[in-house]
């Protein structure tokens, strides 16, 4: 007769070690981390609006402040993180928005490509209206 075996399932603890277990987790954390920079930049934009409403002098001081190397460095970092976030996000769009035509799905490249295209067109439009050209 089979012997009764005592059950005592062992639960292994979860530590933050998983982030470094495979590059995919690190890439994910970088994507999530990008929100801190984008959030900080948005806060700065709100402050800019505040200075603008206070008049030309306050606005001038704000613009002067933007020239500090620290603020420039922050902008470069924020831009890099925003670009990384957008790029990885658009690469994932074929999963979220598959388009079926008859018995086939449109290739991933077409769907991601359409997003990248729209991104480029909108960015150019904003630059145009901002007077960059």
């Amino acid at each position, binding site marked *: 007769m089979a012997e009764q075996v005592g059950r*005592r399932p062992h639960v*292994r603890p979860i530590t933050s070690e998983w982030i470094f*277990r495979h590059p995919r*987790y690190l890439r994910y954390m970088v994507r999530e981390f990008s929100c801190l920079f984008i959030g900080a930049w948005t806060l700065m934009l709100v402050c800019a609006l505040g200075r603008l409403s206070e008049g030309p002098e306050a606005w001038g001081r704000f613009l002067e402040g933007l020239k500090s190397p620290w603020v420039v460095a922050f902008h470069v970092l924020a831009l890099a993180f925003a670009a990384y976030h957008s790029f990885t996000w658009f690469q994932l769009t074929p999963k979220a928005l598959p388009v079926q035509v008859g018995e086939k799905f449109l290739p991933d490249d077409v769907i991601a490509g359409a997003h990248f295209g729209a991104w480029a067109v909108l960015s150019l439009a904003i630059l145009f209206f901002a007077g960059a050209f």
Partner: protein
Amino acid sequence: MGERTVEFEVLRYNPEKDAAPHFQRYSVKCREEWVVLDALNHIKESVDPTLSYRWSCHMAVCGSCGMMVNGEPKLACKSFLRDYPGLIRVEPLRHFPVERDLVTVIDDFVAKLARVKPFLIPQPGAAQAGTGEYAQTPAQLKRYKQFTLCINCMLCYAACPEYGLIPEYIGPAVIALGHRWNEDSRDGGRAQRQEELAATNGVWDCSFVGACSEVCPEHVDPAAAIQQVKIKSTIDWYTEHLMPWLNK
């Protein structure tokens, strides 16, 4: 065919004797064309009969032999030794309690799977008059076919950090299987499944790490299913709250 000696480090846990799991080393002569499962079978037959693990089909269909091979969730029957030049570390699937050695407790997954009703809930009127058959065009089949390929191996759960951190999360495969039936033209059970899928511990626990789809041995792409459910649930919410006249 060549042979070589392969070093294995296998997680061992005997609930009656061990306070905690530990690794045991085996040095075994393996044939070059073997997979990890062949090596485990060889160890069990000729070296150490006390080693416990699950397996059945040896051809990536049954989904029983999921385990961590060098830290990645893999089917042992699909992990060729030739792809692992050095030491091979075999552990039970992550995020599941260890019952014994490489055997995990999978009750949580099974219970969650039942909650999304992974079966046909016929759409009233979908059956053809006279024959009672549920006809479906190839295009309608194509819509969900990929999600039928799931073999319930749970590799996606072992890869998902959200499942590790939030045990209540119903997880990738369960969502993919719920979505599979929702996308089926013969099915009318979406409203019932949404109770589980569109809940906090449904798709909204997912932050789109995407690891589930990377490790899935059947290319089910559960991450795609999850994002599609998120979009549809969001549209549901907007039509319900902002355009109530659209709800009949």
